[in-house]
C-alpha cells in the first residue's frame, strides 16, 4: 500500500490553515487520526523533516495524520506577529475538528514537539476524548523557554558583531512591547503566553502518554520524568540524538521515529 499525501485547507477562526493529510491508500479500516502540533518559530523550520518522517511512519501503522501550519506560519494565512499560543491552541482544536470531518467517528491522538507538545498536553485535558498523547521534549517551564530564546538572540548578535567590538551584546529590542525572540518579532502578549506555559501541575489526562527526552545523555531529565510520572498512563523514554529542532543541518531522526512508532503500535 502507498501513503497518500494530500494538501488540505481548513478554517480556524476565519483564517485558512494549510496542512498535509497522510493516509494509507487504499484506506485502512482502522479509525485513528493523529494531529501533529508544531513547535514555535525557528524550531518548526528545523523540525519539519523529522515530523514529516513521523507522519509517514504513523500512516504506515494505519493511523491517518494531519500535519498543519498554525496561523501566521508556513503556508497558512496571517502574519506571524498577529498570533500566539492561544490562537495556535485554537488552531489545533480546528485541526482536530477537521480530522473528525475526514474520518467520522475517528479516535484522535496528539503528537507535539516542544511548545507544540505543551499545547497538545493542554488540549488533551480539555478535549476529554483524546486517546493518546506523544510529547517530544515538551516545554515544561515557560519563563525558562523565553529566556533561552532571548539568549539565542544575544549569541547571534555577539557572533555577528565579531571579536573586535568591545561593547557587550545588547539585549534584544523590547521597544513598543515587541521582542526579538530568536529572529522572530513577538508581541508582549505572545511573550506572556509563552511564559505562562507550566507543566509542573499534576496532569488530568488519563490516556497513554509517551514523554520523550531527546539529548546528549541516556538519562531522562528530571523535569520530564516528573511530568511522565504525573500521568496515570505516562511513560518516559530517552533518545540520544542531537536536538534536531535547533539544527539547520540534517539530523537522523530514525531512532526517535522508530521508538515512537513502536510505542504507538503497542497501544493501538
Amino acid at each position, binding site marked *: 500500500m502507498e501513503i497518500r499525501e494530500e494538501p488540505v485547507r481548513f478554517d480556524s477562526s476565519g483564517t485558512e490553515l494549510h496542512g498535509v493529510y497522510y493516509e494509507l491508500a487504499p484506506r485502512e479500516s482502522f479509525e485513528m487520526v493523529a494531529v501533529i502540533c508544531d513547535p514555535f518559530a525557528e524550531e518548526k523550520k528545523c523540525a519539519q523533516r523529522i515530523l514529516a518522517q513521523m507522519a509517514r511512519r504513523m500512516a504506515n501503522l494505519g493511523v491517518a495524520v494531519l500535519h498543519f501550519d498554525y496561523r501566521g506560519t508556513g503556508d497558512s494565512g496571517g502574519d506571524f506577529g498577529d498570533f500566539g499560543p492561544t490562537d495556535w491552541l485554537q488552531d489545533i482544536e480546528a485541526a482536530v475538528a477537521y480530522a473528525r470531518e475526514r474520518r467520522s467517528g475517528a479516535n484522535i491522538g496528539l503528537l507535539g514537539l516542544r511548545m507544540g507538545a505543551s499545547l497538545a498536553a493542554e488540549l488533551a485535558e480539555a478535549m476529554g476524548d483524546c486517546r493518546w498523547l506523544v510529547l517530544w521534549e515538551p516545554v515544561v517551564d515557560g519563563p525558562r523557554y523565553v529566556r533561552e530564546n532571548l539568549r539565542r538572540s544575544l549569541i547571534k548578535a*555577539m*557572533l555577528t558583531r565579531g*571579536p573586535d567590538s568591545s561593547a557587550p551584546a545588547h539585549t534584544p529590542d523590547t521597544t513598543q512591547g515587541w521582542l526579538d525572540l530568536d529572529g522572530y518579532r513577538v508581541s508582549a502578549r505572545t511573550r506572556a503566553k509563552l511564559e505562562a506555559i507550566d507543566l509542573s501541575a499534576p496532569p488530568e489526562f488519563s490516556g497513554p502518554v509517551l514523554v520523550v527526552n531527546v539529548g546528549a545523555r541516556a538519562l531522562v531529565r528530571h523535569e520530564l520524568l516528573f511530568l511522565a510520572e504525573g500521568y496515570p498512563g505516562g511513560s518516559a523514554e530517552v533518545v540520544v540524538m*542531537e536536538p534536531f529542532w535547533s539544527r539547520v543541518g540534517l539530523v537522523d531522526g530514525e531512532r526517535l521515529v522508530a521508538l515512537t512508532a513502536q510505542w504507538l503500535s503497542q497501544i493501538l
Partner: protein
Amino acid sequence: MSDDSTLKNQLKEMIVERLFLNITAAEMADDADLMQTYGIDSVNLFEIIVGLEEEFEITVEDEDFSVEAFATVNSITELVKRKRGQR
C-alpha cells in the same frame, strides 16, 4: 593533575558530548579556536552555555557574552573560574 587541568578536561567532555563532536575530549586542544577548528556556531554556543549552567553550576549573565570569552577551552575555563570567584 592540577585543578585547572581537571576543569579543562571536564569542559572538553561537556563540549564534545553536548555538541556530538566526532572527536574525543583528549583530542581537543586547550587553545584551539572553537569556531574555526570545530565549526562551532551560535546554536552550539547556546548548548555550551546551557552546559556551563547545568553542569558547572554557574550563571552566565548577559554581560558575559563575548566572542573572546567563548573562543577557546582556555578562555571558557577562565570564565568559569571567574564566575566561581576563583583566580
